């Protein structure tokens, strides 16, 4: 097989270049028919320059609109367009929003419960790393299990369900039709919840498949596979009834993610097929792709929709977003083996993954430039829109985490930080800094439309934001520094291994403190969420906005 080493590397490069040429060819032949009109498909006539932000009060909305209009000198819209609430296209949007209420509500409510439980498990695990005799009397709470319960709850409970809920809510708006087959998604939410709950109990009880990110036993994993498949049904039913000429880029990401995940999960979970090192390879191919081909598409789909929609401004370049999509699919899917660099894995495979990890610069810069250019000059709007504040921060951190990921795959740096807490900090930058921030912002936009009710305590949104941001900044900065120091100690043969343990301790304590703030933020978020669901708190206008106007409400 030595011949394949160079040959495969050359082949993968060739396919990449070929793919690029095919893309350019398709572009020039107009096969992808994309342009400004595709970017504007999420707006009705006259909506450009009109902000939409259901998460805030009327006065805040006015301020947001002024901030946007100031930045947009050519805009003649603004107040003149305010009287559009009687227009049929906005009434149609109200119908679209109502068609996905049950599905979005089921997924988002569950996701928030999992977020709270997952955060608490994470806190316990973090505390255990500095107090090893904390809660050791029961096997259920041993570090190896509570840490794993944390991971599975936040990935499959919080992140996946939030992504599915937001995606199901966006679909009718993106396709300008009612969500078809909503009940499949609601049933999917039930199965998915059952799968995560049973899986977490199994892990705590000691029944696990033993592979990182794939711990939930395959017998229970069937529930996840079925739940995921059911949730994909409305996508394809709704696609077939769409009333738009152009599929907005968010639809591309959502459709691909819903196709990819079941395949990834089934291939990785099929029992008694994988063996030894080959199993390790499949393990990290999967674990990396859960982030790359499942959660990242949801996060980017939300960012592409909500940034444009809140600002009332089409994304900077629709073509660039398509480059980003295909390059992500191409390169991210092959990068996973960088988790095993230097291990007993065929060398050609490691080379492929390093090359593709570095190639990830292309989709990341495409997305980063695109989203930055959409917001640039309008940062004042972040003061008034909680959705924008969370989503724009998340999008910026996406660029950061991806550049960091490419750097970590480069051998000289990998040698230092492999096996250290630096990787844990990196994983949280991706899943929290990037993904969760975007989901928080999206939920603040979506819930008022789902419940047709305002957020009762706007100040709690700001409190949630600052707790999450401060907590996470502490978490990330300290754990990254600690990880590098740990790596330096481990690589130094003259220092005993214990040095790498001791040097970490203060940084792990800081991490726990950051985690406490983050968890406090989640508790505020959850409390606010359920106060809204139960209709507690001050009633201000009693209405949630749609487009530029208050909706009928209930």
């Amino acid at each position, binding site marked *: 097989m030595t011949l394949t080493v160079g040959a495969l590397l050359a082949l993968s490069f060739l396919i990449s270049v070929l793919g690029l040429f095919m893309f350019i060819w398709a572009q020039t032949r107009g096969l992808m028919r994309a342009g400004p009109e595709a970017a504007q498909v999420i707006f009705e006539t006259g909506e450009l320059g009109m902000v939409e932000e259901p998460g805030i009060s009327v006065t805040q909305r006015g301020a947001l609109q002024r901030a946007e209009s100031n930045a947009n000198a050519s805009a003649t819209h603004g107040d003149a367009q305010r009287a559009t609430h009687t227009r049929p296209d906005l009434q149609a949007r109200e119908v679209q929003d109502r068609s996905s209420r049950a599905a979005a509500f089921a997924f988002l409510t569950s996701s928030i419960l999992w977020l709270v439980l997952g955060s608490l498990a994470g806190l316990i695990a973090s505390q255990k790393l500095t107090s090893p005799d904390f809660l050791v009397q029961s096997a259920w709470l041993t570090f190896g299990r509570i840490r794993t319960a944390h991971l599975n709850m936040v990935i499959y409970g919080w992140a996946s369900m939030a992504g599915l809920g937001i995606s199901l809510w966006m679909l009718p708006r993106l396709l300008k039709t009612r969500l078809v087959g909503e009940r499949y998604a609601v049933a999917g939410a039930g199965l998915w919840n059952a799968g995560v709950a049973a899986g977490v109990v199994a892990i705590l009880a000691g029944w696990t498949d033993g592979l990182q990110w794939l711990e939930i036993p395959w017998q229970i994993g069937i529930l996840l596979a079925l739940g995921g498949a059911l949730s994909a049904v409305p996508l394809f039913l709704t696609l077939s009834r769409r009333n738009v000429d152009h599929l907005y880029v968010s639809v591309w990401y959502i459709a691909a993610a819903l196709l990819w995940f079941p395949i990834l999960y089934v291939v990785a979970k099929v029992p008694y097929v994988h063996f*030894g090192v080959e199993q390790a390879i499949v393990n990290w191919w999967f674990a990396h792709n859960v982030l790359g081909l499942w959660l990242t598409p949801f996060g980017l789909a939300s960012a592409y929709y909500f940034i444009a929609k809140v600002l009332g401004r089409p994304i900077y370049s629709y073509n660039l977003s398509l480059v980003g999509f295909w390059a992500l699919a191409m390169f991210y899917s092959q990068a996973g083996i960088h988790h095993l660099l230097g291990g007993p894995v065929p060398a050609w495979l490691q080379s492929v993954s390093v090359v593709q990890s570095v190639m990830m610069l292309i989709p990341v810069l495409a997305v980063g430039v695109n989203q930055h250019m959409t917001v640039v000059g309008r940062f004042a709007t972040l003061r008034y829109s909680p959705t924008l504040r969370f989503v724009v921060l998340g999008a910026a951190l996406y660029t950061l985490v991806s550049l960091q990921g490419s750097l970590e795959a480069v051998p000289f740096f990998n040698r230092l930080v492999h096996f250290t807490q630096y990787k844990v900090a990196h994983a949280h930058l991706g899943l929290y800094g990037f993904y969760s921030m975007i989901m928080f912002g999206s939920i603040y936009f979506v819930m008022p439309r789902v419940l047709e009710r305002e957020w009762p305590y706007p100040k709690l949104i700001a409190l949630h934001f600052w707790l999450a941001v401060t907590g996470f900044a502490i978490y990330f900065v300290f754990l990254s520094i600690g990880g590098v120091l740990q790596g330096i100690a481990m690589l130094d043969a003259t220092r005993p291994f214990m040095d790498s343990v001791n040097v970490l301790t203060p940084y792990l304590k800081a991490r726990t403190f950051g985690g406490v703030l983050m968890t406090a933020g989640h508790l505020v978020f959850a409390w606010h969420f359920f106060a809204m669901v139960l209709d507690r708190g001050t009633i201000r206008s009693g209405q949630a906005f749609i487009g530029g106007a208050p909706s009928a409400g209930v």
Partner: protein
Amino acid sequence: MNRVLTIVIGALIMLAIATLVLVALPYRELQDESPPEQLKPYTIAQLRGRATYVSMGCVYCHSQQPRAATLGPDALRGWGRPSVSADYAYDYPHLLGVSRTGPDLFNIGARQPSVDWHLAHLYQPRSVTPGSVMPSYPFLFKVVAHPGPNDKVVTLPPQFAPAGGQVVATQEALDLVAYLTALNHTYPVPATESGVTK
């Protein structure tokens, strides 16, 4: 309609390429590999111990993949030669691990063959390794007033011994130690067998 098809087919092709390169080809390359002659299959007790290792999540802090000298001082720390894929022939699920909060354990049986040390270490890691952050596993042990003749009593420094009884290992603890002491991959392998050591 053709635009939806573009997404579906394109997305599937991309994933197919990745699956081919990252799953199918390694499967083909590695499936015919035979285990090294000196590598013994696990005994039943060792397999039970391995299952405990898996269920306690030891893999989240301990790797089982010593690396070449160019990648770190693993050999100098006594963690053994760089592992090769054939070393893992009997491992299901794999336990390579990607974190070293604790040391690599691929050759812990060669480095620390003492059953007594392992039992004391599992009952209370800090009794034998001061400063360790490994959790203690008291639930793998029993405290009894009068150990029976077949009981394996754990020897502990006095400050770690419980008052009013002696610590006795359960079968689960003994099996786990049987697995740990069997982790010994110090036999030589031809350097060409690994794509890494070249």
